[in-house]
């Protein structure tokens, strides 16, 4: 990916602002890898179903800390993000997915 993470410690807000601009869909001066519009995985592949029993699939939408990754980052569409969120919560109830990591 290269760029984008230059001032990680100080420039968090800057990063975020830049990302918001990118979501606007404008041409971002040819910077690759950062402004790419992400597509919803579930819309792109109709055969793919959100399944709370599938641990490996669901883990993709969790951070290392066990939080649900927001739509703005995962690129899911609203409908599928909702499904993913429900599925993660179901998985948590069955101890398939963690509520939190490293705070035991």
């Amino acid at each position, binding site marked *: *990916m290269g760029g*984008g*993470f230059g001032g*990680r410690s100080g420039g*968090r807000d800057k*990063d*975020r602002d830049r*990302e918001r601009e990118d979501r606007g869909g404008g041409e971002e001066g040819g910077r690759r*890898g*950062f402004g790419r519009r992400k597509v919803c995985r579930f819309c792109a592949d109709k055969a793919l179903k959100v399944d709370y*029993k599938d641990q*490996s699939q669901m*883990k*993709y939408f*969790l*951070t*290392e*800390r066990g*939080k649900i*990754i927001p739509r703005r*980052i*995962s690129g899911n569409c609203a409908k599928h993000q909702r499904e993913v969120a429900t599925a993660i919560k*179901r998985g*948590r*109830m*069955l*101890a*398939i*997915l*963690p*509520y939190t*990591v490293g705070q*035991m």
Partner: protein
Amino acid sequence: MAETKKMVREYETIYLLKAETPDDQVEEIKERLRGVVSREGGKVIRFTNQGKRKTAFPVARNAKALYMHCLYIGRPGLVHEFERNLKMLDVVTKFQSVKLADEVDFDARQVEPDVKIQPVEDEPKPREERGEYQSGEEPFEGEPAEGVE
């Protein structure tokens, strides 16, 4: 007059048993639940034994649990009865039921044989897992730094 189809709902229940539960007791619980479902006018499609798996957090002070999955069809009151029976069993530590479909034709749905899946040997750490998505799909960018106070 055309016969009216018996329309029912499809449910699935996952229940967790203590990891040290002997096989014959697992079978016994299975048969008991099958009895409950048929008594209530439903039909068990299949049981799936998903094997002993590591849980994401300790359940009943145990890091592992035996996952059982039951797919069945029946009328709305059935789930309540099913769960009431699970509650009575001491070896059952957790359970959850989900409705999968409304309006399933009772007679059209065939009973399938029970399945036993070997547990997948877990489990790559999330951080390592990141690497797997490099082909075609990049890991998430700009993920907020967490745990930084």
